[in-house]
Structure formats: structure tokens, C-alpha cells
């Protein structure tokens, strides 16, 4: 009794970016310098896509690149910071210039908006944000939160509305052709984002057989039915890293942060690493094989 193979979901990076229309409401994976689908973000920028809306927990890298390329219209976020390297330069400048609208949440509250959607609930109660400007100042999301008592105990709670972004863009460790996705290490909010979004595109370091996935079904984060398309993109998170595959590229991060100090220098960065390279492999050649090898993870420690 073997299963008939389902429709193939493997597509190219260019095809994946083409699925995402201008003005889409996105949620993007990432926590600090890991799990970021940056090859896909670069391809979106390369294809001229923009006017995006984001709902964000930790996708500092994607948000800053999109803001720096002028492709980000508004965001609800809990935090954008380059851990160890300070503020996100392009995002911060864009907000200060009034080019990007921002509406702030805490990590737990923004994630709870995806949890509500994932669970098929209209909202989730939380005990955070109460009493602060995160509740009082809501330029985008006045009707997305409501203070109300627990119907059973009367305790004060904040209810946050289910969020259903149009797309979740995710970078993960490996997947099979049916879209079953596994992630090594911490999983950030990938599961909540993918379950909340209407459509899910996953880029991965490795494509493996369905049999490989099925040998460790406990490790599957996203089952295939959640995933519309899978793209094979080795080093697809660079300059961020992937646990057990490669470390984030500190040199390149420092280069990026310096470039982000002004619109002019960041334009040069985009010219060099996005517009000036036709595709992801050209990008990797520009980074250089020697550097990619240096970044590889130690198999025992995973980094």
C-alpha cells in the first residue's frame, strides 16, 4: 500500500517570486541572524515587486532590505534589530522619513494574532501590552485589539484579532517534493506564520526524499498540505545563517550595516548584490566559494 505521489511543488526562485503580487500582505520567517528567506527577498526586489505590507515578529533582515529598496509600505511589528549590530538602518530611516507606517506589538501579542488564525479562532486572549502605548497608539490596527474581561473569571485580558497574511515566505532546513518541511534547531514563529497565511512559499537548504522525511515524522514542522511551493536555495538565508548548515556572515553583516547608513551607499549595496547579479548562484559566486566554505557549520556543534 504505497501512496501515489502528489503534484510536484518544486519550482524555481524566479517562479516563486512571480507568485507574489505587488501590494501583498506578507509575513516572513526570521529570528535575528537566522531563518531568513533572503534569496527570495532579493529576487522579489530584483523583479520589481513592492508596496508590501508586513506582519512581523523577527524578520529584521527581510524588513530592512525591503525598506532600503523602497518596497515596504507599512508594517505591524514587534521588533526589528540586528542583534549585536544595533538598529536596522534602512527601516529606521524609512520610518523617521515617514515613508513606512509602523504599528507596534510585543512578540507574544503579534504571534498570538497568528496563533488565533492557526487555531481557527477570531481572536486570542493575552495578558501583555496592557497599560502601555502598544495598546493606546495603534495607527494601523485600532480594531485589531480589544480589552475585555474573561467571560469565566472576569480577569482583564487583551484580545488580539486573528491575522491572515496573504503569503508566508519561509526559509527552512529541508523539504521533500510534497512540501513537508523540517527545521533544525529553534523554529522561531514559522509554524504560526505558515498556519496563519493564506499561501505559503518555502525555500530550503536541501531537497530530500519523502522517505527521508517519513523516517523522522516527529521532526516535520510544516506538513505538505500547508505548503504551496518549495524552492531549493542553498545558502538561501545568507548573510543570515542556518543552524547545522552555516553561520551568519559577520563580515557581510558589518558591510551591510555600514552600507545602510545612507540611502546612497545602500543603493550601491543593492546594485552590487541584488540588481547586479542575475540570480542566486551569481550572488553566491560574488560572495565567493572560499567564504561560503568558511561559514559552514561544524557537524558536532551545529554552527
Amino acid at each position: 500500500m504505497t501512496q501515489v505521489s502528489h503534484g510536484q511543488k518544486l519550482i524555481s526562485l524566479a517562479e516563486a517570486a512571480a507568485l507574489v503580487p505587488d501590494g501583498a500582505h506578507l509575513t516572513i520567517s526570521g529570528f535575528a541572524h537566522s531563518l531568513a528567506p533572503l534569496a527570495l527577498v532579493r529576487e522579489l526586489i530584483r523583479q520589481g515587486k513592492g508596496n508590501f505590507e508586513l506582519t512581523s515578529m523577527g524578520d529584521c533582515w527581510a524588513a530592512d532590505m525591503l525598506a532600503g529598496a523602497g518596497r515596504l509600505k507599512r508594517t505591524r511589528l514587534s521588533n526589528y534589530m540586528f542583534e549585536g549590530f544595533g538598529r536596522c538602518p534602512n527601516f529606521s530611516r524609512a520610518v523617521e522619513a515617514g515613508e513606512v507606517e509602523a504599528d507596534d506589538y510585543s512578540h507574544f501579542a503579534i504571534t498570538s494574532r497568528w496563533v488565533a488564525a492557526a487555531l481557527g479562532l477570531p481572536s486570542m486572549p493575552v495578558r501583555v501590552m496592557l497599560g502601555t502605548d502598544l495598546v493606546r497608539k495603534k495607527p494601523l490596527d485600532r480594531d485589531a485589539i480589544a480589552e475585555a474581561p474573561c467571560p469565566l473569571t472576569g480577569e482583564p485580558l487583551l484580545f488580539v484579532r486573528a491575522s491572515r497574511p496573504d503569503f508566508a515566505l519561509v526559509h527552512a532546513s529541508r523539504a521533500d517534493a510534497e512540501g513537508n518541511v523540517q527545521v533544525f534547531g529553534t523554529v522561531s514563529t514559522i509554524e504560526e506564520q505558515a498556519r496563519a497565511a493564506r499561501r505559503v512559499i518555502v525555500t530550503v537548504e536541501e531537497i530530500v526524499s519523502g522517505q527521508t522525511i517519513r523516517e523522522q515524522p516527529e521532526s516535520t514542522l510544516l506538513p505538505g498540505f500547508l505548503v504551496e511551493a518549495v524552492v531549493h536555495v542553498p545558502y538561501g538565508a545568507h548573510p543570515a545563517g542556518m543552524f547545522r548548515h552555516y553561520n551568519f556572515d559577520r563580515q557581510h553583516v558589518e558591510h551591510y550595516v555600514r552600507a545602510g547608513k545612507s540611502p546612497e551607499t545602500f543603493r550601491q549595496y543593492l546594485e552590487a548584490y541584488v540588481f547586479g547579479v542575475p540570480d542566486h548562484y551569481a550572488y553566491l559566486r560574488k560572495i565567493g566559494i572560499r567564504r561560503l566554505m568558511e561559514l559552514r557549520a561544524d557537524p558536532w556543534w551545529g554552527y
Partner: protein
Amino acid sequence: MGQEIMAVAAARELRDNEMAFIGTGLPMIAAYLATFTHAPGLTLIFESGIIGAQPRGLAIGVGDFKLLSHCQKATSLYYALSLLQAGRVDVGFLGAAEVDQYGNINSTAIGDYRRPTVRLPGSGGANDIASLAKRVIIIVGHQRRKFPARLHYLTTPGFLDGGDSRRRAGLVGGGPSRVITDLAVLGFEPVSKRMQLESVHPGVTVEDVKAETGFELLVPSTIPETVPPTLGEIRLLRERIDPEGEYLAPPQPAAPKAV
């Protein structure tokens, strides 16, 4: 030395077998120091989904693979933060761009929120930690602009408007217990919940602290000196925990590092 006494004062706030929600930088150094001294049973939790970390060396952030590798449980951000809401976390550490007299924190924006002069990173897990942990320790450099009379944006709750306003808002965590700066250790007066001076670091006067505080600080009649770091603590910090001087001023000029 300012950094070192902050790390030592913070470490002393941790008790053995506690569950501690840790950020990077000084909180991490303080947690390591506590683990090597009086609190070997501390469980370290990071919002990135790392539970029971056993770090090899200093990490540059809470998502650092050094913390993830060989931890007890590698999970999700939602799991880690839900431990806070379940009341399982004894103590959390927070930094601040601004902190007011009730221990409320701004880490979102300077200036008008919609068109800020300086856009900061935002709450992240800070609001969650401050709302939910049993107690919170704030670690911040003591400069007048960081201790304003009024925050530009209230990201993270301390005692809100003081008194019992925090409890009335529905916040179940205990709120800030200490503010540790490079000048002093501060606490909160039990009824009004206003910030009060607890001790000044060696060589610092009460007037020095007042001069760098933008609101009226409660000052009890006698203010002890902060117990200085012991030689053992200093050695652990300089030789074992941060030998490269990444966070603490290095004991001598650092050699140029290979990239």
C-alpha cells in the same frame, strides 16, 4: 569597571534554581557569573526558543547558535514566551532607551510615534517579560536623557502610574524590582512604586546620581555603598566569562583580532 560592577550587582539578584529569562550583553554575563558562583541551578531561557542553554562562550544575541547548540529543548518563540504568561519565569532582565520614575521603559521611538526623530527596535519580548515575569531587573547606563520625567513612548510596563495601577491594568507579573546602572542600584518604594536609591557604587555620590536622573528620585536617609566585586568575581568575569572583553572593558589593550 562600571560594566563590571553592573554585571556583579545583577548576578547577585539571581537566586539558585530560578528560571531566568535572559537577554544578551550584561544580562548574559550576569547570568553566567551567577551560575559559576551562588546559583549553579539557574535555568536559562531565551525568547528565541532556547530552553536550558549550556552556552560555550559568550553569545552575540539570544538567537546565537552557541546558545542553541546542546540546549535542553529547542523550540519556538511562542513556547518560550508562554512560559512567562504561565508564571513559570522568576526573573527577567531588560535594557532600556528611556526609563521613568515608575520603571516604565521606552524602546520604540524618540519623538512623535508616527514620525519619530529616532525609530528604535521596538518591544520584542520586553513588554512580555515586564508584563509577566515574577520580577524584572532593568540594566541601563545612568545618563539624564535615559532617565526622563516623561517617556516618549511607553513600550514596556513598570508600575505604570504607580500605586496599584499596574495590578488594575491586569498585569500579573510582579514588575521591576531593581534598576542597576553604572552609578547605583535602585529599587521601588513599596506603596507609591516610585524609584528610590538603594546603594551607590564606590566613588559615586548621591548628588552624582541625582544629577543624571531627570525625575525626582526618592533617597532614604542612609545610602550604603554597593558591595564591590570580589576578586573572585572579577577573575571569573575577566578570565573565564569575557576574556576577549567583548562586553566588559578589557583589562588591557586588546590585541587586534583576526577576522
